[in-house]
């Protein structure tokens, strides 16, 4: 299907043939690494879309397998754990789970013992319902990517986690690029006092350590979660784009085509965004891509440290955090799943960025 999309774009490019974008696309087509990474990134985006609409990995939060189900690529139903685990870990592996189950039961018992609830009957009924479901539902002994401590499917978690990470990365990148581009354009084009003021603003912003800034923003917003992370990353990450775009505008505002537009009395607004912007847009585009990669990593780090998504959400960072404790117990699969997915996306994204940059800059010639 991807082939079909690609070839249809190709024919369009060949028909139009001479605009900047179609020439860039023609160069991009020749870059095999770029094409492969484009397909990988596109695949991730499709998965994110499917997961966001709930078609895939909607049940990531449910207990679908036994606790710590081992990965098995065939995903076959197997008899419960003891048969699989034979080593010294066996005891320890079972104990913490058993303890926690024990604890839960205790808590349940305490609750039912102490609380007098007018709705108790209904709750009982619901509870009974729940129990029947739980009994009917068969827990799987193994999963393709394994299960976590609570018997949740690591594959679903990874998919849901990539939804969070990618949405955060892309939206924050878009926000930062938008800010950086608009401010950079104004500073570079007008120069003078506007430039001074914006530069001052930029210097102040980039002088504050960004982790502190994030803590501050988080404290002000009084909440954690995806939106907060996007806002924090977007508001702190625009400075690089600002510098680049400002430099581009300084370069372009003296160009003769801009002078010619001035000579006709074309309004500044139009020159800024209609004349010059298309000429620097490839810089913007490449920067969105670079920032997205950086922000995906930043989100992972933030969530890993506990500053990121809420406890009831999942991202690659929180998965890595979960996996950290389990690794000592020999349960490697959650770490590998989250780390592998992130490595694949980030690598593909970076290669895609390089390919885009090469395709859009005709001056770069590759020695073959």
């Amino acid at each position: 299907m991807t082939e079909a999309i690609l070839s249809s774009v190709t024919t369009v490019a060949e028909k139009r043939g001479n605009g900047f974008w179609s020439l860039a696309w023609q160069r991009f087509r020749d870059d095999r690494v770029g094409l492969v990474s484009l397909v990988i990134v596109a695949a991730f985006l499709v998965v994110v879309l499917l997961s966001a609409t709930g078609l895939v990995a909607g049940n990531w939060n449910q207990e679908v397998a036994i606790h710590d189900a081992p990965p098995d690529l065939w995903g076959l139903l197997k008899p419960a754990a003891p048969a699989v685990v034979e080593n010294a870990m066996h005891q320890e592996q079972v104990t913490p789970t058993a303890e926690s189950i024990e604890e839960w039961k205790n808590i349940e018992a305490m609750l039912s013992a102490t609380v007098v609830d007018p709705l108790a009957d209904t709750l009982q009924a619901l509870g009974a319902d729940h129990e029947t479901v739980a009994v009917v539902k068969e827990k799987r002994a193994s999963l393709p990517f394994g299960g976590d401590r609570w018997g949740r499917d690591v594959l679903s978690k990874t998919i849901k986690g990539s939804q969070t990470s990618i949405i955060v990365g892309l939206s924050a990148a878009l926000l930062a690029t938008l800010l950086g581009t608009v401010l950079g354009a104004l500073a570079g084009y007008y120069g003078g006092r506007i430039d001074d003021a914006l530069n001052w603003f930029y210097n102040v912003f980039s002088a504050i350590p960004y982790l502190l800034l994030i803590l501050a923003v988080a404290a002000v917003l009084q909440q954690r979660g995806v939106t907060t992370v996007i806002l924090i990353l977007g508001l702190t990450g625009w400075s690089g784009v600002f510098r680049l775009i400002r430099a581009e505008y300084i370069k372009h505002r003296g160009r003769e085509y801009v002078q010619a537009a001035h000579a006709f009395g074309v309004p500044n607004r139009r020159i800024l965004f209609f004349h010059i912007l298309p000429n620097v847009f490839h810089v913007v585009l490449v920067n969105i891509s670079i920032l997205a990669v950086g922000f995906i990593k930043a989100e992972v780090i933030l969530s890993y440290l506990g500053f990121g998504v809420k406890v009831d959400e999942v991202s690659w960072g929180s998965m890595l955090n979960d996996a950290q404790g389990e690794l000592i117990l020999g349960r490697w699969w959650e770490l590998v799943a989250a780390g592998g997915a992130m490595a694949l996306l980030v690598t593909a994204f970076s290669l895609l960025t390089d390919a885009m940059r090469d395709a859009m800059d005709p001056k770069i010639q590759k020695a073959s």
Partner: protein
Amino acid sequence: MVSENASTSPTLFSIERLSVAFLRRRQSPFTAVREVTFTIREDETVALVGESGSGKSVTALAMMGLLPKYNADIASASRVVYQERNLLRNDDEAWRRLRGADMAMIFQEPMTSLNPVFTVGYQMAEVLRLHKGLSAAAAQARCVELLDEVGLPEPRRALARYPSQLSGGQQQRAMIAMALACTPRLLIADEPTTALDVTVQKQIVELLKTLKARHRMSILFISHDLALVGELADRIIVMRRGEIREEGTTETIFSSPRDRYTQALLQCRPRLDEVPSRLPTIDDFMAEVSAEPQKRLESAEPSPTPSSQGERGDSPPLLEVSQLKKSFFKREGLWRRHEIPAVKGASFTLRRGKTLGVVGESGCGKTTLGLTLLRLHRATGGTVRFDGQDVLSLSDEAFMPYRRRMQIVFQNPYASLNPRFTVGQSLLEPILLHRMAVGRSAATTLALDWLQRVGLDREAFDKYPHEFSGGQRQRIALARALTVEPELLVCDEPVSALDVSVQAQILNLLKDLQAQLGVSYLFISHDLAVVRYLCDAVMVMRDGEVVETGDVDSLYRNPQSVYTRQLLEAVPRGRNQGTA
């Protein structure tokens, strides 16, 4: 200047059947040089002359082994023979030993040929240490000697300077000194004076002649300017589209050129001593030979005979400028500003339907003057009256109608068109902005009409600027400026970036359009011959000041100031084009 023994001395270099093709992606290879054969004798200056794309630089680069390996394909039958060896078989190491020591090259842009982060002395000493194994002190002493020889004042101090601290002419002298460091047998000079002013050009040419005589070396001089080459070459080779059109001694090339293309090249460049009403173009000469028939603009043929000549000086003044000043301010520290005056008070009058030439060397303020007139720079002082109205004091809104009446065409047609706009978009914008036509379809019709009037096809409308050659782009830029029917057109070096043949076409077009539309030109140029051809009056500028103003004929015949005389003398005249 002709070496007596040039025709008899032994061959130094021979280039045999050199063919170079460049590999292109998704396209067949582009043949840049095809079966080129010539020799360079000892103690001889050979000139390779041709327009851009003629393959002259590629030939030189092939001789130096400097063509990019990944896409340049040199045909296997090609040979470059030096000391009975085919250099094209050389490996990198052999090339390295040869370059600098036996052959050296200087380029068009001295600024970009010198490394900006090293001092001139360091870069020169490097050559000597690498090739001659001199000690640092010995290299230093030799550098001083060399810089002295190329006429750089205060050589010791110049050695400690960075390239950006030298002027263009000084940089080129330093480049020549570096090339001479190991006394090469052959010096290849690729358009060494094209980026320089006429007076500096003359000095460099004189320098090359002296050095050649003193060191008995050969020079391969590459240029697009036949007149310039006539001043120093023993033999001239004319190239076009990768092939040699004609080869001969300088005398024969100038006195009796056999090839049509050579004849055309000689004719199509405006001269100081003769002003035709219309310049011949290459196409006039190549009409029978040319494969694709060029579309000449029938509509724009000069139907009205230059009757305007008779009423010279009678037409009312369109533009009256008095004591116009423009300074730039450089910020130093937080508050202080340093004033750099670019135009120090220019006064002149331009009459309707006339052309005023503004002449001067780079940095004289002529471009700043043009931009300040149009309020593209804010004037520091003085008044500009356009059609009686003081336009500098108007508000931006009130000036808007004058933006329509005063337009500009820039020097570099590669930079003056927005690369992301189609030609159509570029033309439609001013038309719609100034309501030259109502509605989009009427505007499109008008734009197409203008394309036709400047000699372009309707198909150009949907294309992007990069699909056109320099001359065609300049036509587009001209059409764009004319869409709003200006009364004044500032032409800022509109033909300087173009080949001579294309230059002739654009100059003819400018003349035709003036005859049709009655538009006045303020023609800014460093080329005195072009100004002579096109203008009615001339203004000479130097260091931001007007040196001399006058009627074109009298000023050229009888220049009043020393500076004007110097400028006129520096213009290359070729062999027999001089003041005979």
